[in-house]
């Protein structure tokens, strides 16, 4: 297996999907000659032509809306929102339309659409190039929300998303693009949607997380093992559908749960995880469920000070782990 960073894994997966399936096409801002602002679609225009690598007007509602129409007409569009922060104009199309098309037509129409977007902070992205958006969308039945954290999962889940018959919001953490490297299986590797991954097995407490925070949590866990604290890290990978079984299994196993995400705390993904545990595993718990999340401010600022204060870091995660372990 080749070692690739996450960006290369996404690029390879998109490339192979375009080559494999003529229904697949990419549309978004700067995906053509520029090859996407992170160079994910670099050279695609030359290889696949302007019909399938479509530079769109700067209008997110229609990027998604047009992709929905193409999906309803039998294509497999991959729409790109350049930064997750720009997705709000398309909210109606994603939530009000794409997620409801199968339901509202009693299965008569379907919307096999992938919306890819880079999200998250830690890269100096300021207020409008750093947000996490998963909590706004994982609430919505009819929509799937994925947030892979490793290159292999990025490939496997992106392939699964492209093959899926329902709309999928595919979140790529910007900081993982080049930071995270790993072996990527060749060929049409897929990872099932809705299955979490045990990033690190442990027995003293569980961290449930996803995205960049998976790596920070594993890093923190490797620190704590030096002190004999053995932490299990569960990477959700799929935020909706959410792997309830994996959540309950790890909560029951270690009896202490720390939820870590970069997105704002209030009403975030951690709230749902906590509720699942409270509803179904209360009597297995040895400590209250804890959450270490981004603070409830609109976004992280441009200043490095703001960013550092906002983002959960390996050190903070380690401190939270120690605190829970000592409970």
């Amino acid at each position, binding site marked *: 297996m080749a070692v690739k960073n996450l960006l290369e894994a996404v690029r390879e997966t998109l490339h192979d999907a375009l080559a494999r399936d003529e229904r697949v*096409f990419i549309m978004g801002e700067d995906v053509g000659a520029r090859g996407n602002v992170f160079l994910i679609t670099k050279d695609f225009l030359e290889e696949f032509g302007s*019909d399938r690598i479509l530079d769109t007007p700067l209008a997110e*509602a229609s990027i998604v809306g*047009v992709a929905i129409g*193409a999906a309803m007409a039998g*294509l497999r569009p991959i729409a790109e929102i350049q930064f997750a922060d720009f997705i709000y104009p398309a909210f109606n199309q994603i939530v009000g339309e794409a997620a409801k098309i199968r339901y509202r037509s009693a299965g008569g129409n379907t919307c096999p659409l992938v919306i890819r977007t880079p999200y998250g902070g830690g890269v100096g992205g300021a207020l409008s190039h750093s947000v996490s958006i998963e909590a706004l969308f994982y609430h919505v039945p009819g929509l799937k929300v994925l947030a892979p954290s490793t290159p292999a999962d990025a490939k496997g889940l992106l392939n699964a998303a492209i093959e899926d018959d329902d709309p999928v919001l595919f979140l790529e953490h910007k900081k993982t693009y080049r930071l995270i490297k790993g072996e990527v299986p060749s060929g049409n590797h897929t990872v099932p949607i809705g299955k979490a991954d045990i990033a690190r097995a442990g027995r003293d407490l569980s961290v449930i997380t996803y995205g960049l925070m998976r790596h920070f949590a594993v890093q923190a866990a490797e620190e704590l093992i030096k002190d004999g604290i053995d932490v299990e890290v569960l990477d959700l990978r799929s935020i*909706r559908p959410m792997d*309830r079984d994996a959540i309950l299994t790890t909560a029951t196993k270690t009896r202490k749960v720390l939820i870590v995400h970069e997105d704002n705390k209030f009403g975030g993904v951690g709230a749902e995880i906590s509720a699942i545990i409270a509803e179904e595993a209360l009597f297995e718990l040895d400590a209250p469920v804890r959450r270490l999340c981004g603070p409830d401010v609109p976004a992280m600022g441009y200043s490095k000070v703001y960013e550092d204060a906002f983002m959960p870091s390996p050190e903070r995660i380690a401190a939270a782990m120690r605190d829970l372990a000592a409970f």
Partner: protein
Amino acid sequence: MKSEPSVRETLPEGLTPERLRDMYYFMILTRVCDDRGFALNRQGKIPFAATCQGHEAIQVAAAFALRRGTDWIVPYYRDTCMALSFGVTPREQLMCLFARKGDIFSSGRQFPNHYSVPDRHIASISSIIAAHVTHAVGMALAHKMRKEESVVLTSFGEGSTSEGEWHEALNFAGIHKLPIVFLCENNEYAISVPQSMQMAVKNVADRAVAYGLPGVICDGTDPIASYVTVREAVERARAGGGATLVEAKCYRAMSHTTDDNQLTYRTPDEIEAAKKRDPVPRFEAWLADRGYLDERSAAELKARALAEVNEATDWAELQPLPTPEDLYTHVYAEGPLS
């Protein structure tokens, strides 16, 4: 069936006396369905109905200007006549009014007139104004990418043209010269708000220039003029000439829906005057003047439409309701997931 014509003229391409009588039939069939919806609501049998009275001419004309089985329509919730003219049956129409489980559009989930009939090339819409216009563009994009002959016609009211997504859709279609017809059924009101409060331009068609599209206007209460205009746009799209914005000027002859009272924003005089623009008697006279329809056959067609709608009403009312379990179907391909 024929009487001595008082007017002699050549019919537009694609229309025959037989097709004209079919158009007339769909107009009166729609009128009966429309009245039936309001009647059922007033009887307390259904919670809600919308009307298309005043729009029948442009709707039937648009449906007839398209190629059935090839072209697609992405209509809006006021397009009863377009849908009936494009293959929807009175039984199907009544099933959606009654929200029965067997309602093929949505199994009783959506408001009436939110059609979804893929096998007859009618795409699903929501009630969100203008949200479907970008979908129509995406469908046209797919047709173009696959080099198919299909043209997409999407319709909406003039109020829709205030929505940002509407502008995005026309802009996109203009850039890519997509095979699509944007049909604005301008009935002068968006619920209660008149056109003058909706836009500063006189005609919706004037907006087309901003997107590099032809913007054309027709009398939406005249089926023949409407047919000619829409057909030209459809065939231009099919020939690779790109999109057209057609503005059909018509009038909404009733309240917005069963939940609205037009007297709160329109005067009785205005409503009375609008009745003179009713496309149904006007078309009937037009056909009679040209010898395509006599009084007896007009009466026969009306009786047939009424019988058909009566039968559909009685039948649909007896069909089973959805069950609470049906709430959980069609959330995802795999079923409901959490």
